[in-house]
């Protein structure tokens, strides 16, 4: 009966059925598309965070790791470690053509660093191999701030100079040549970072032979948390290891929250569709009063009548979910065509790149998203039939049959 109400014999569509299904379909489609694109963004961003931060960073609780070679040897001895690279980090003041900047500086060993994080991948101009004690690689943001380009000479001032002033000593700024520009897609890094060799950084910061930490790359398939825990428990009391998820916990939490908030906001589309289903089914109860009376008069039980209306909501939910998921898969497949179309429509090219570091709209399907969206949709659509169902079940058959 429920099916026949929605898809009457001899008719292709029932207006009520098709409009209700369309409402649910649109809600599900938008939800799946948005969640899939959000997953794509999350994945891309997480990959970039992981690529720039390394799997694990090992620090000394005292700040400077003087015996880093021993620690590095111990870390390398673990089966799950693929490569390591020492680093030192801090802040400096730099100047180019009277334009100052205060970037974060990271001292690295280029050939070892490249084994741990895909640094070469981020170099957009110049070469990583050209980095030596007289040169520097700038992030695109810093280069733009001070107007530097490949071959530009910059002056670097370090906190060590202030220390020396206390003892009436003057340390001259260090002149370095820009040999490369890099861009990681992480705004935090791209806007304000420069790379120098570890040796130069040790000199600029007066670290002697010490480093601030060791970056660790794990072998594929290694459990990140277990590896972090192993390092924390076995490297000694003064050593602390943080994995990239712990280091970026707040950022990742914001990403997760964004996705969850988006889910609940868009779920309202399905709720609106559910109200429309409820309203249509209520109208249907009024319109079908006589038929409801007839069914009861012919031996139908109230719960059968009620279930007929709940079932209609459920069927609308099922068909709407299936069509919505299919529509979403098609929309996600053609997402870049759709973006290009919008770009042409507003006469602007590469809109995406203006706001995001991606040329193509990222997307990533998660099975759990489909399960959650379909379950929510079915529950909401079925509940939409409950009130009309209760009303239908409470009809007096004799009065219903008298209904004109």
């Amino acid at each position: 009966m429920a099916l026949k109400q929605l898809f009457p014999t001899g008719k292709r569509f029932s207006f009520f059925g098709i409009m209700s299904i369309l409402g649910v379909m649109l809600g599900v489609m938008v939800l799946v598309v948005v969640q899939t694109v959000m997953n794509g963004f999350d994945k891309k961003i997480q990959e970039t965070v992981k690529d720039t931060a390394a799997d694990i960073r090992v620090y000394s609780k005292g700040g400077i790791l003087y015996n880093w070679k021993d620690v590095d040897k111990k870390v390398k001895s673990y089966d799950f470690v693929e490569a390591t690279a020492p680093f030192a980090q801090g802040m400096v003041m730099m100047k180019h053509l009277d334009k100052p900047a205060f970037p974060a500086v990271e001292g690295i060993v280029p050939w070892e660093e490249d084994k741990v994080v895909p640094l070469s991948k981020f170099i957009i101009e110049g070469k990583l191999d050209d980095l030596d004690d007289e040169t520097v690689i700038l992030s695109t943001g810093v280069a733009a701030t001070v107007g530097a380009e490949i071959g530009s000479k910059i002056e670097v001032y370090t906190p060590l100079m202030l220390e020396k002033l206390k003892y009436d000593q003057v340390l001259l700024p260090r002149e370095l040549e820009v040999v490369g520009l890099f861009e990681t897609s992480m705004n935090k890094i791209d806007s304000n970072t420069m790379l120098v060799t570890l040796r130069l950084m040790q000199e600029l910061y007066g670290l002697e032979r010490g480093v601030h930490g060791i970056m660790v790359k794990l072998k594929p398939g290694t459990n990140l948390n277990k590896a972090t825990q192993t390092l924390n428990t076995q490297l000694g009391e003064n050593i602390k290891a943080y994995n990239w998820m712990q280091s970026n916990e707040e950022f990742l939490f914001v990403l997760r929250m964004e996705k969850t908030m988006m889910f609940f906001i868009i779920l309202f589309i399905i709720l609106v569709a559910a109200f429309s289903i409820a309203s249509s089914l209520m109208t249907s109860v009024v319109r079908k009063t006589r038929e409801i009376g007839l069914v009861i008069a012919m031996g139908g039980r109230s719960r059968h009548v009620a279930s007929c209306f709940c079932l209609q909501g459920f069927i609308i939910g099922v068909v709407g979910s299936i069509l919505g998921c299919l529509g979403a898969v098609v929309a996600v497949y053609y997402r870049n065509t759709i973006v290009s179309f919008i770009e042409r429509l507003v006469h602007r090219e590469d809109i995406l790149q203006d706001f995001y570091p991606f040329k193509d709209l990222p997307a990533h399907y998660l099975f759990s998203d489909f399960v959650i969206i379909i379950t929510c949709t079915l529950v909401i659509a079925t509940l939409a039939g409950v009130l009309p169902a209760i009303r239908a079940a409470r009809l007096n058959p004799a009065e219903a049959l008298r209904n004109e």
Partner: protein
Amino acid sequence: MSKDSNIVLEAKGVEKSFSSPGHPIHVLRGVDLQLKRGESLSIRGESGVGKTTLLNTITLLERPDKGEIIWAGKRMDQCRNSNLAHARGNLIGLIFQMYYLVPELNAIENVLLARRIIGKVRPEDIKRAKYLLDTVGVSKRIDHLPTQLSGGEAQRVGIARALLNNPEVVIADEPTGNLDEKTAEVVMDILLKMCKEENTGLILVTHNPEYAARTQRQSSLLHGKLKDNEK
């Protein structure tokens, strides 16, 4: 309770009134009625006298205020709605003046609805539905929707639907009231013939004295009481 196992429907001292501003309207004031298996009974009466209320009460679509309703030897007026529904679907077939076919279902689906409501449709039900539609003369219209049927055809489908579950009694509330004279004659012929063939009891409410005269027993509802007429 009657001990005659041939009695399929019985009403004893049935009273029914409706509340209205001022004073209640007493529609049925102690109706007694007995119908044996395969017997036909007509009920006549003026408009508004309570014929439909009587039918609704003996089918327990409305509960009587007083009295007993007995179906196939079992007192039913105190039964729970769920038990009533099952018994009603199996024991009673209903035919209405306005046919009341479900507009979304075609002719055979409308007939099979009677079975679908009380259980699963079995292959033998489909066979019987086709047989009944053939017998009432609409075998060529089984795929047609109610809107594609004439009044006479729709009522014939209604008769087939009422008989599908082999009920003990068919209750027809002015089944020809919405048909022209010629069509009404044909429908009445079919109804009486099929009830006889199926050995089903028939309670026929009609204004037409000729149709009433064709039933085995005739009665009139007057001042809330049912009186047998001499044939």
